[in-house]
Every structure is written in structure tokens, then in C-alpha cells.
């Protein structure tokens, strides 16, 4: 490098090198490229035996060789801890040039025995130019010459320094670039997270996403996310990734373990060696993580959760940079979680509202109690998303709860009765307060009746309408570690009044229904009884009539037979007389035959009308009014009654008189009904006189008189007897149903009451009695002669 040409050449080369470096920097080449380029140029330009470019890692105190040229070849030495020369360089920030007496310099710095001990050749000249970035020495370029002293001149030193500065700038640029790039990446990751998080408003999905993002962002092995429950002041682990254990569902109190500590202090926490950490929670005993970093998730001053990231490798503690990054991420995660929670709560509330409305609609539709009770329980179980449940109704009279519906308790509790204070439900019945039992199996208050149940946690609410206990509703979890929260209680409390009202309504409805049904049934029974009795009364009167009818029908039939028979004889005689030419005799015989034929017709009709009357009497009333000759009807039934009685009692005898007004004429009546009334009155009259006859003095003539009369457009029909009369005290009862003075079995007690109904309701008439005790009674029927009114029953 001594001649001009070579100097010029060297300058050109130097400029070219600097230009290349600038270009590389402008082109944002990576550092290894620059080290390589600078190193290659230097070993070409200088005669030095060794060209070396190295960078420092101050954390580990190691230098990394980025470029090394020695013994005419490219070499790749291992990283090496700093020696005293490097330390000097780092300390002074300035170039180190040793052009002569290098051995004593080295001995001075590295120690007296350094050379003899290591056997290393000491260069005759060497120079170190440091890379200073942000006021910190980050590496160096060194040139060494083993055979000559003062081999580097001022120009060389300057070039070297220029190169070192350029490399420093490159390093800084690259670092800035890297930071920039990393920041951009982080930004992007956060944005992704945000997008993701806002998209995943479903809480569970979101929590998983948050944790996943955090793990990816920090490049850690695993992590854990917990949300904070303000009501119970606990952290619940909701997502965990690669902790060596499944931590989901673990709950931590304030101050419990790493997360609990963060919840308490609201400060980030870095634990370099978790396995050695004294405060670790027993719940994380089995985890194999090594270093842990936890940050609180806050919304303003409010804790919403905690986020942990972990490393499994030894000696990978978390740095301030990691913390900074996690701290940047935390507010985003917190906001996302809170939003999702709010959203979830909102949606849950909407779901609840809908479910409650459904329940209302459902319940109001189901008024049948059993069905309703099952529906209530089903709804409650679905609403709370619990494993099972139980519903009991309260009986005020016996002060007992009756379990009426049970679902998945591990036993069938249906039909169990509980006293006040007996078991969970009994306790709720007594206090009228909700009850949450975190561990039912360990609960001392449990009832023996539930010894078979397998439930774990229980929540019971009273069902009240106003202040009135209607029942109790329980929901249960079977899984250990699933507890009822204030949210669950709030929901069940919202549901309870609905259920209570529904049950009460159904109860009232059922009760009313039952009463109505009972009343209806009783009415129906009465109706049946009544119709049976009416039928019986009809049969009784028909029975009384049968003998009379037989007798009555026998007589006309006898006449029909006899007159036909004798007419045949007369006709034969008539023929004889005609043959003999006795015209007069023939005419007389013919007249007799004609008379007989009239008699046959008459008696035939008589029999016919009796049969018709009998049929009419036995048939149900048609209810249709006809024009009827009241005298004929009265006479017919008088005869029927008389013969009936005579047929029943051979010794019976009584006079019967008729006083029938020829003017009575036709009347609009239902004949079989009025016939029944007349028959009934005549029977009573005959009964009255025959009763009196058994006790009366000799000379008493039992007499029954039947009379008709037309008075002021009304037909009056009287049945009078000279019996004992009716005592005043029972006179007003005789028209009441089932009232009878006859011995048991002889009267239905319905005759007069039915008669009364027929006359008053059916014919708009009246039925009266005039009686004198000891002298007799007269029953009076008055009916409008042209009665149109009256609907028959």
C-alpha cells in the first residue's frame, strides 16, 4: 500500500466498498450480507492475516463471529465469551490500535501467563474498530498482522472506522427495521385478534381465541386465561393451553397462586422458576411449566380476568420486552372479554326473556296440574342448563311439601313428603328464602329420604304467590366443581313467581273444575235417580192398573165373542124364517143381529181404548196437547183405578160416584199426563177411604166422588173422598217430592209432586187440596179449557 497507484486503487476500492454498503443499506439488505461483503473487501484490500467481524450478545457475554478470515481461508469459529480486550473495547467505545509491543500489551491486559499458557501467537499489529449503536458497543471489526509491526497507517484506520460506523448504522437501521417490522407484526396480530375477538362474541370461543393469540404473539409454550367473578371474588380458569394439566374450571381466591396474586395486586407478575416458587397453588401441583408471566386484565380500574403465559424450557425467563408486549395485548383482551360478557349477558337475558315468555305461554296453556308441574320443572332445568331438578307443591292444611315432579336426581323422589325444615326443600319452606348448597353429599341438613341421590350441588327457591308458599323448586348439578352462581339464582328467582302463579292458577282451576265436575255429577245422578223414580212411579201405577185393565178388557172381549156367536145363531134362524116365509120374524131377527153388530163394535172400541190408554200410560209423554173429552178420560181412569185396587185387594170395596158436567166438553191437554194425575188422585182417595174403613165404626160407607165442571173458561175436576183427611201439619208437604204417608214400599212419594208439576208447569193450571181432618179431602184440578201455554218437562 505504499505506491501511489496502489493508494489510488485502494481509495477506489474503499469508495466502492462504502458505496456498496450504502447501496446494501438502501436496498435494506440483511446484516449477514453486509458482514460478508465488508469482510471479503477488507481481506482483499489489506494484507492483514486475520480479518474478523463479530457481534456481542451482552446478555450472555458472548461474541458471535459474523465473518472470519484467517490462514488464507474463510473460517467459522465458535462463539466465544468476551476476553479482556473485548471488555476494554466495550468499556471505551473507541478503536483499539496496537502497532508495536503487542506481546507486552496482551500480557498486560490478559495476564502475564496468557501467552505461555495458551501457546497462541500474538500478532505484531492489530486494530479493533467498535460498532457503537445507541451508545452501546455491539461488535467490532478487527485486523491482525502476525509478522509486521505498524502495518496499519492512518488512512487504514480511518477507513476501518468509517466501515465500522457504516456497519453500526446498518445494525441500527436493521434493528429499527426489525423493531418496526415486529411492531407491524404485533399490530397486525392485535388487529387480527381484535377482528377475531369481535367476531367471536361467543364467550367460550373468544376466550380460547384470546389465549391462542397471546401464546402466538409471545412465542411461548403455553398459557392460561381466567375470568374474574366479582360476586364470588374468584378467578375461574376458562381456557388453558399446554400447561401439562387441564386447568379449565379451576377457581382461585384472591391471593391464591400466581393468578390469584395478580388479582389481588392488580400488578403483572413474572415467576422465573415456577417449580421453585413457594406461593404456587396446590391446584397446579401437576403442571410442568418453568417460567410464568401473568398480567391482570383490566377495564379501567376493574379486574375482569388474568392472562398467563408460560415457558416449559429451563432458563427461558420472561423479559421486560415480553411483559411490555403482553401488557399491550391485555387491554384488548380485557375489552374483548368484557364485550363478549356483556353481549353474552344481553343475549342470555334475551334468551331468558324468550324462555320465560315461552314458559308463560306454555304454562298458561297447561292448566292440567300434573302436566303443568312437569312442564315447569322441564323449563327450569332447560333454563338453567342444569343436570336435574325437582318440584314440590305445598299443602297448607298438612304443612307438608309434596314432591310432584323430579328429573334426573339419581332417584325417583316423586311422592316424597317433607315437613318444614326437613331437607333442603323443607328448609326453604320454613325460611321462604333461596338456598344454595355447594356440596350436598357433605351437607348435614340433608333428609334421609334423599340418601340415594347422587347430586352434588343444589339450589332451591321457594315458589310464592304474594306471601303465600305454593311450593319449592330445586335445580341440581351432578358434576363436582359446578356451582350455582348469583346469576343462576337471579334467573331462578325470575322464573319462580311465574311457576308459582301458574301452579296456583292450575290448582284453583283444578279445584273449580273438580267442584264443577262434582256438582255436575251429582246433578246427573239426581237426574238419573229422578227419572228412575218417575219411571218407578209409572211402573207402580201401571202395576196397579194391570189387574184393572185385564178385567176391563175381559168384559168387552166377552161381549164381542158372545154377540158374534149369538148373531151367527140368529142369522141361521133368520134364514129358516125367510125360508118359511115368516117375514116379520125374519125382520125382528135381523134387527137383533144389527143391534148385536153395534154392540160388537161398541165393545171392540171399548177394548181398543183401554189398550190405547194402557199404552199411553206406559209410554213416555209425547208432551203434545190434544183435544180430549175430559169426562170420558175421567170415567176411564176412575174405572181403571177401581178395578186395579180391587184386583190387588179382594176385600176392598168402596162406592164411587161420578158427577160429570155434560158441558165440560173438550179440553186441550196431554191425555196420558192428565190421566196419570187423575189416576193418582183417585188411587189416593181409595187408599184414604180404605184406611179409614179399617178403623171406622160400622155404617161407614167408603165413598169416592169424581166430578167435572166448566167454570169461567176453566175445567175443574174434583176428586173427593170421605177418608181421614190430611193433618194440618203435613198438608203443606204433600206436594213435595218423596213425601209419603204410605208404609215403606207402598208409595214412591212422587205421585203428588209429579201431579203438581204436570198441572202447574205442563198445563198452566193449579192443583189444590181442601181437607178436614177426620172428614175427608178434596183435590181440585183447574186447567184453562184452551190451554196453549205450558211446555212440558
Amino acid at each position: 500500500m505504499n505506491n501511489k497507484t496502489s493508494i489510488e486503487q485502494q481509495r477506489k476500492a474503499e469508495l466502492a466498498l462504502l458505496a456498496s454498503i450504502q447501496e446494501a443499506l438502501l436496498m435494506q439488505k440483511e446484516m449477514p450480507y453486509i458482514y460478508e461483503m465488508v469482510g471479503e473487501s477488507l481481506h482483499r484490500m489489506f494484507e492483514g492475516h486475520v480479518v474478523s467481524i463479530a457481534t456481542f450478545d451482552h446478555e450472555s457475554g458472548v461474541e458471535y463471529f459474523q465473518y472470519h478470515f484467517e490462514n488464507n481461508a474463510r473460517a467459522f469459529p465458535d462463539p466465544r465469551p468476551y476476553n479482556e480486550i473485548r471488555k476494554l473495547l466495550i468499556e471505551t467505545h473507541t478503536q483499539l490500535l496496537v502497532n508495536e509491543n503487542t506481546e507486552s500489551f496482551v500480557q498486560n491486559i490478559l495476564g502475564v501467563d496468557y501467552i505461555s499458557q495458551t501457546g497462541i501467537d500474538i500478532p505484531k499489529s492489530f486494530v479493533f474498530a467498535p460498532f457503537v449503536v445507541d451508545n452501546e458497543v455491539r461488535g467490532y471489526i478487527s485486523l491482525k498482522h502476525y509478522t509486521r509491526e505498524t502495518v496499519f497507517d492512518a488512512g487504514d484506520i480511518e477507513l476501518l472506522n468509517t466501515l465500522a460506523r457504516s456497519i453500526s448504522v446498518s445494525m441500527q437501521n436493521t434493528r429499527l427495521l426489525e423493531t418496526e417490522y415486529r411492531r407491524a407484526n404485533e399490530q397486525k396480530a392485535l388487529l387480527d385478534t381484535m377482528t377475531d375477538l369481535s367476531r367471536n362474541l361467543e364467550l367460550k370461543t373468544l376466550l380460547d381465541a384470546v389465549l391462542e393469540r397471546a401464546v402466538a404473539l409471545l412465542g411461548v409454550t403455553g398459557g392460561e386465561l381466567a375470568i374474574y367473578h366479582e360476586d364470588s371474588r374468584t378467578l375461574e380458569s376458562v381456557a388453558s393451553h399446554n400447561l401439562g394439566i387441564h386447568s379449565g374450571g379451576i377457581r382461585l381466591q384472591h391471593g391464591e397462586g400466581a393468578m390469584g396474586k395478580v388479582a389481588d395486586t392488580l400488578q403483572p407478575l413474572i415467576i422465573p422458576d415456577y417449580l421453585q416458587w413457594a406461593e404456587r397453588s396446590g391446584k397446579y401441583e401437576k403442571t410442568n411449566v418453568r417460567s410464568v408471566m401473568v398480567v391482570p386484565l383490566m377495564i379501567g380500574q376493574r379486574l375482569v380476568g388474568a392472562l398467563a403465559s408460560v415457558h416449559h424450557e429451563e432458563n427461558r425467563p420472561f423479559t421486560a420486552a415480553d411483559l411490555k408486549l403482553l401488557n399491550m395485548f391485555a387491554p384488548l383482551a380485557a375489552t374483548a372479554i368484557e364485550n363478549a360478557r356483556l353481549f353474552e349477558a344481553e343475549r342470555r337475558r334475551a334468551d331468558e326473556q324468550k324462555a320465560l315468555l315461552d314458559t308463560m305461554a306454555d304454562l298458561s296453556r297447561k292448566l292440567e296440574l300434573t302436566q303443568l308441574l312437569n312442564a315447569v320443572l322441564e323449563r327450569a332445568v332447560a333454563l338453567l342448563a342444569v343436570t336435574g331438578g325437582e318440584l314440590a307443591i305445598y299443602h297448607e292444611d298438612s304443612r307438608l311439601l309434596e314432591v310432584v315432579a323430579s328429573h334426573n336426581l339419581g332417584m325417583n323422589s316423586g311422592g316424597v313428603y317433607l315437613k318444614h325444615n326437613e331437607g333442603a326443600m323443607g328448609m326453604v319452606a320454613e325460611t321462604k328464602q333461596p338456598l344454595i348448597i355447594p356440596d350436598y353429599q357433605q351437607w348435614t341438613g340433608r333428609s334421609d329420604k334423599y340418601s340415594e341421590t347422587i347430586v352434588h350441588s343444589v339450589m332451591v327457591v321457594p315458589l310464592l304467590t304474594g306471601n303465600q308458599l305454593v311450593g319449592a323448586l330445586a335445580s341440581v348439578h351432578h358434576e363436582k366443581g359446578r356451582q350455582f352462581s348469583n346469576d343462576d339464582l337471579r334467573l331462578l328467582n325470575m322464573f319462580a313467581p311465574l311457576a308459582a302463579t301458574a301452579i296456583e292458577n292450575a290448582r284453583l282451576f283444578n279445584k273449580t273444575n273438580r267442584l264443577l265436575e262434582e256438582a255436575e255429577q251429582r246433578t246427573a245422578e239426581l237426574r238419573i235417580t229422578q227419572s228412575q223414580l218417575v219411571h218407578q212411579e209409572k211402573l207402580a201405577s201401571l202395576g196397579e192398573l194391570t189387574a184393572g185393565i185385564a178385567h176391563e178388557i175381559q168384559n168387552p172381549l166377552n161381549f164381542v165373542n158372545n154377540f158374534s156367536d149369538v148373531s151367527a145363531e140368529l142369522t141361521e134362524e133368520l134364514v129358516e124364517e125367510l125360508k118359511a116365509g115368516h117375514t116379520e120374524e125374519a125382520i125382528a131377527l135381523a134387527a137383533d143381529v144389527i143391534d148385536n153388530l153395534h154392540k160388537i163394535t161398541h165393545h171392540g172400541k171399548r177394548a181398543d181404548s183401554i189398550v190405547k190408554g194402557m199404552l199411553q200410560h206406559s209410554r213416555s209423554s209425547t208432551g203434545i196437547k190434544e183435544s180430549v173429552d175430559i169426562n170420558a178420560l175421567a170415567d176411564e181412569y176412575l174405572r181403571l183405578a177401581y178395578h186395579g185396587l180391587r184386583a190387588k185387594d179382594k176385600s176392598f170395596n168402596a162406592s164411587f160416584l161420578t158427577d160429570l158436567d155434560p158441558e165440560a166438553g173438550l179440553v186441550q191437554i196431554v191425555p196420558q199426563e192428565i190421566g196419570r194425575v187423575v189416576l193418582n188422585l183417585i188411587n189416593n182417595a181409595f187408599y184414604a177411604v180404605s184406611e179409614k174403613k179399617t178403623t171406622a165404626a160400622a155404617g161407614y160407607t167408603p165413598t169416592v166422588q169424581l166430578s167435572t165442571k166448566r167454570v169461567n173458561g176453566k175445567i175443574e175436576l174434583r176428586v173427593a173422598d170421605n177418608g181421614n183427611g190430611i193433618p194440618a201439619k203435613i198438608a203443606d208437604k204433600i206436594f213435595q217430592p218423596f213425601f209419603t204417608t204410605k208404609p215403606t214400599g207402598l208409595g214412591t212419594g212422587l205421585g203428588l209432586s209429579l201431579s203438581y208439576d204436570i198441572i202447574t208447569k205442563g198445563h198452566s193450571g193449579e192443583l189444590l187440596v181442601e181437607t178436614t181432618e177426620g172428614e175427608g179431602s178434596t183435590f181440585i184440578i183447574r186447567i184453562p179449557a184452551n190451554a196453549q201455554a205450558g211446555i212440558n218437562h
Partner: protein
Amino acid sequence: MKILVVDDEQDIKALFEQRFRREIREGIVDFAFAFSGEQALDYLKKNNHEAVLILSDINMPGMSGLELLKSIKTEYHTPPPVVMMITAYGDEENYRQAMQLGADDFLTKPVDFAILKTKLKIH
């Protein structure tokens, strides 16, 4: 032979007169008719033992055939008229009572006139 027929049916008269028209024409029998027990007793009182045979129905309004029988058998001792009672078919009770009261003979309804004529020994 004077025969008193007692029955509440008015047409019994026409029937008997036709059935016995030959015997009546030939003067073998003579009929009187009463339409109730009371009428029968009245007739017997007025006509003083004229009837030698009384033929009576039992079922009648007012005084029954049995009461009439009793009355005749207690009031008319010497010689008591022959009383023949007409009973309904199968009416054992009336038959028994009539026997106790001293009925002389019985006919069941419907009256068979051939049998009656045999009993009256008019054939």
C-alpha cells in the same frame, strides 16, 4: 124358573135374552136383571123369594158379588136361593171366599152358555 142375573154390565141383559131366547119363548126360564148388588137385594126384597137362582158377577162397583152372596145367605134362610157366582179365570181367592160364603156353584168368565144350560138342566 126365575133367574136373577146380577152384573154391572148393561149389555148382559141383551146377551142373556138372546142366548136363552128359545127357552124364554118356550117359558122354561124367566130372567130378571139387576146391575148392582144393591139392586139385586132390592129386587129380592120386593119380589119375595121369586127367584130360585141368582147368577152374580163378583167385581162390581159398590156392593160386590161376594157381599151380595153373604147377604143372601144370611138373610134368606128358608129356602135359600141357589147362588151361582161368576169368577174371573184363575181368581182362586174370590173362588175360595165365595165357597166359604156358601156359593152353590161357579162359572168362570167368559161364560160358556152351553155349560150354563147343562147346569140349569134345561137341556
